[in-house]
């Protein structure tokens, strides 16, 4: 029998419909993989095996009657940031110790309504703050990829490191993820998977633990461009419970796949050519340009002059919003409580014990830049720079550019402990963070391997609510580059 875990969502959908196999068989195959591999990869913090079997059986009943939704019987992993009713939802932080929400996030509700099966909750950087999945309270996630001939562990990227590793390691068919500065696209690039952050307002943020509310967006990580289109269609919705959810119907993204890119204008921003970028990243970028030109797209050089200011502005805006959002964790209503001699002492003890180092750093930066006398110098200035960053993109769209092609990351996956300097770690998001600052959609598509055999990704940036073009162009890259599988060393 074929290994069911090697199928794409699109293939599994056909197999389930034609009754070649059942959702329970498919689900059991993934649970078996998780059982074998999770000790090595640490991608799941909780496996909901009983629930997965129940959901799979319910799907099989529907499928037997020729019924079922768009994701009927498809087993997925859920990032620990999404509220799942009665199930571990702790943003991989100690401060949410024991928290089980009595409600379900909109995004996961949408997935279950379409018939998806939940395998468990996925590891992540604490409160989604990190680029290597080294800040989780539940330990590092390990990348299924290793350098050729090496036994050294590598990071899967972050913050959606568990999501990316679980997909690449065949521990789920697809996963939910979130992206505040690159947390979907960077781990996707590090693991040879496809990740899309949709336009701000496309997926409801209701029931997703908040990090930086003006930047956070949910999106999927999957094996193929088509699978990511299938998942996003289901995750996205218009939701009255999120006032920033935008009132635009969700299109059928899958319909865009396979369409010609002939005549599309693809912008190449010269500012993404950064000092010290490895030659192979440049070569990959050039390769992507050649693929799209061969497919009939028109390549134009463009300028996004404020690119280099996106990361510093982000490290004011994101910590500022985080310091405000994370004020709610005080040991009173949920999670950890560490006693103190009075209530303030209890707050301080709880937050000292409950938050990890990176989260504390960002709360302190955020508190400082918002404190009396510094607001104008930092936060207001960053928000003005943000206007300029968005304006750069608006000008490109006004000049007829349909999508922008850039590298996804300035380097391939690195080893745990290799980057200890916070600012050095932040630089991992240099190509992805502009997209969050401007609220645009961005997709990372695997495009090749570096000389050491590690995956590298290309990023496509689109116009607001034009995810369809990203899927269309992304498919051209996937067709040209092929797909990439890590060699199995675990389990």
């Amino acid at each position, binding site marked *: 029998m074929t290994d069911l875990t090697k199928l794409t969502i699109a293939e599994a959908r056909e197999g389930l419909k034609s009754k070649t196999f059942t959702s329970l068989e498919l689900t059991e195959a993934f649970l078996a993989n998780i059982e074998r591999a999770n000790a090595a990869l640490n991608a799941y913090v909780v496996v909901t095996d009983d629930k997965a079997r129940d959901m799979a059986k319910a799907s099989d009943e529907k499928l037997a009657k020729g019924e079922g939704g768009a994701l009927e019987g498809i087993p997925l992993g859920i990032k620990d940031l999404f509220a799942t009713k009665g199930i571990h939802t702790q943003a991989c932080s100690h401060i949410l110790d*024991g*928290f089980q929400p*009595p*409600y379900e996030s909109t995004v996961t509700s949408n997935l279950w309504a379409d018939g998806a099966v939940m395998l468990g909750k996925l590891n992540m950087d604490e409160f989604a703050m990190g680029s290597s999945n080294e800040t989780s309270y539940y330990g590092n996630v390990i990348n299924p990829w290793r350098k050729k001939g090496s036994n050294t562990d590598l990071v899967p990227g972050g913050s959606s490191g568990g999501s990316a590793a679980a997909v690449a390691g065949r521990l789920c068919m697809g996963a939910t993820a979130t992206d505040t500065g690159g947390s979907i696209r960077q781990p996707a690039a590090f693991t040879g998977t496809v990740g899309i952050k949709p336009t*701000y*307002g496309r997926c409801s943020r209701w029931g997703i633990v908040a990090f930086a509310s*003006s930047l956070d967006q949910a999106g999927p990580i999957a094996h193929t461009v088509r699978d990511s289109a299938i998942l996003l269609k289901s995750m996205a919705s218009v939701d*009255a419970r999120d*006032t*920033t*959810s*935008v*009132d635009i119907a969700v299109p059928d993204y899958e319909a865009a796949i396979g369409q010609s890119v002939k005549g599309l204008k693809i912008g190449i921003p010269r500012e993404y050519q950064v000092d010290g970028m490895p030659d192979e990243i440049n070569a990959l970028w050039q390769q992507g340009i050649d693929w799209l030109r061969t497919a009939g797209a028109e390549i134009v050089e463009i300028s996004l002059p*404020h690119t280099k*200011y996106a990361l*510093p*502005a982000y*490290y*004011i805006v994101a910590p500022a919003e985080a*310091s405000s959002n994370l*004020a709610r964790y*005080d*040991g*009173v*209503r*949920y*999670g*950890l*409580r560490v006693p103190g001699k*009075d*209530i*303030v002492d*209890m*707050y*301080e003890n709880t*937050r*000292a014990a409950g938050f990890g180092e990176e989260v*504390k*750093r960002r709360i*302190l*930066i955020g508190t*400082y830049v918002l*404190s009396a006398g*510094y607001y104008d*110098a*930092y936060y207001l*200035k*960053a*928000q*003005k*720079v*943000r*206007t*300029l960053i*968005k304006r750069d993109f608006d000008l490109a769209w006004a000049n007829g550019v349909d999508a922008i092609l850039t590298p996804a990351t300035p380097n391939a996956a690195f080893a745990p402990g290799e980057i200890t300097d*916070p*600012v050095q770690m*932040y630089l991992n998001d240099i190509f992805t963070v502009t997209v969050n*600052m401007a*609220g645009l959609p961005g997709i990372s598509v695997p495009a090749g391997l570096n000389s050491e055999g590690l995956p590298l990704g290309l990023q496509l940036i689109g116009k607001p609510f034009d995810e369809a073009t990203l899927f269309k162009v992304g498919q051209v890259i996937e067709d040209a580059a092929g797909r990439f599988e890590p060699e199995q060393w675990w389990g």
Partner: protein
Amino acid sequence: MSVDTDTVKRVARLARIKINDDQAAKMTGELNEILGFVEQLDEVDIDGIEPLTSVVEQTMKKRQDGVTDGDKADDVTANAPASEDHFFMVPKVVE
């Protein structure tokens, strides 16, 4: 701009995070590195530029001011570290 250890302690107090002297000294270095990094923004001419308040141009959605949910005191207090009769229990704040 840079911060000294006393400022870091004051900010930690504002953020309600207890830190000891060693941690404050370590944080001071790290915070200064981050503040040094964001200093590049001083190069940008922001004269006459409005701050970005929303990436999507839309007017804030409004809803009817009506009761849509409620009677969930059990749910609301279910995750509390300490609760009694649907109240959150905290150390005494008023003598």
